[in-house]
């Protein structure tokens, strides 16, 4: 087996996930929020692959692959929404996108 304990990898994944979560909460620029979501998805991917390696369970890598596909689809649609948002309001703040609130 490897010399690195599994704990290290899961801690790294948790750290990256938390940083991404902070970015989602703190940032107001929709593109930066989106990047933070990508970071969170990557952290989840890392934990999938870590468990796949340490528990000898190859399904984890299959799930990670499917997750990458879903993330790619999500990025395409999300960026299209951001483009539409920028086009309708010349605004780079997510708080300005309150059209559907009422």
């Amino acid at each position, binding site marked *: 087996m490897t010399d690195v304990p599994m704990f290290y990898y899961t801690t790294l994944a948790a750290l990256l996930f938390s*940083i*991404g979560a902070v970015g989602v909460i703190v940032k107001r620029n929709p593109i930066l929020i989106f990047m933070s979501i990508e970071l969170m998805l990557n952290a989840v991917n890392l934990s999938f*692959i870590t468990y796949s390696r340490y528990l000898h369970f190859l399904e984890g890598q299959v799930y990670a692959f*499917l997750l990458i596909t879903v993330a*790619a689809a999500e990025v395409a649609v999300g960026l299209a929404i951001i483009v539409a948002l920028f086009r309708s309001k010349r605004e780079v703040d997510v708080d300005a996108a309150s059209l559907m609130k009422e």
Partner: protein
Amino acid sequence: MAISFEIVFFGVFAGIAVILAIMMLSVKSPVHAALCLVGVMIMLAILYLMLHAYFLSVVQIVVYAGAVMVLFLFVIMFFYSPGASDPSRMSVHFTHIAGAIILAVILLAVITGSFLLSGNVSLTEKPSAAQMTDIEKPIAETSEAPLTEETSRMIEKQNPQLVGRMLFTKYLLPFELTSLLLLAAMVGAVVLARRSPPAEAGSAGGDGND
């Protein structure tokens, strides 16, 4: 207990990844944030290599660091005017040239080093066809069985084959469903990003001036 190389490598790459992730949130320009995110993706790809997930490591670089980040940069470039730093006004400093030369030397060293190393290792003992089939045989039998120590060692060697076999046999339905998902996402992105035609832009009203 002596600290092994693997832990050192893990520490370096994980540290760089965390620092870049924090930098992503702290830098001002969205372009710089995107570049930091590319760095995080590449560090994660290296960590996937350390976890023996070779296939996913390459997919990570091609899909995330390649396609996804290019999409991000496209949107950023479309909607954020560079402002003070005009990209058309290229001013070449001495430091730029020096950095380029140093990077070129490092690249040359890496390429020649890898050539020298591969000349020692892989050219002399290239795996023959008989060996390959010998390795592949037990995988087909044990793909459904619980993994033992030997098959886990096999996973380290034959990761892309095993993942591909799993994707196209046991997980064929989810795999095909992702193609449907990608198609739906593509159609959705085209519909959302398209300029709405003036006939149905009644609600949008004033800003429909192309």
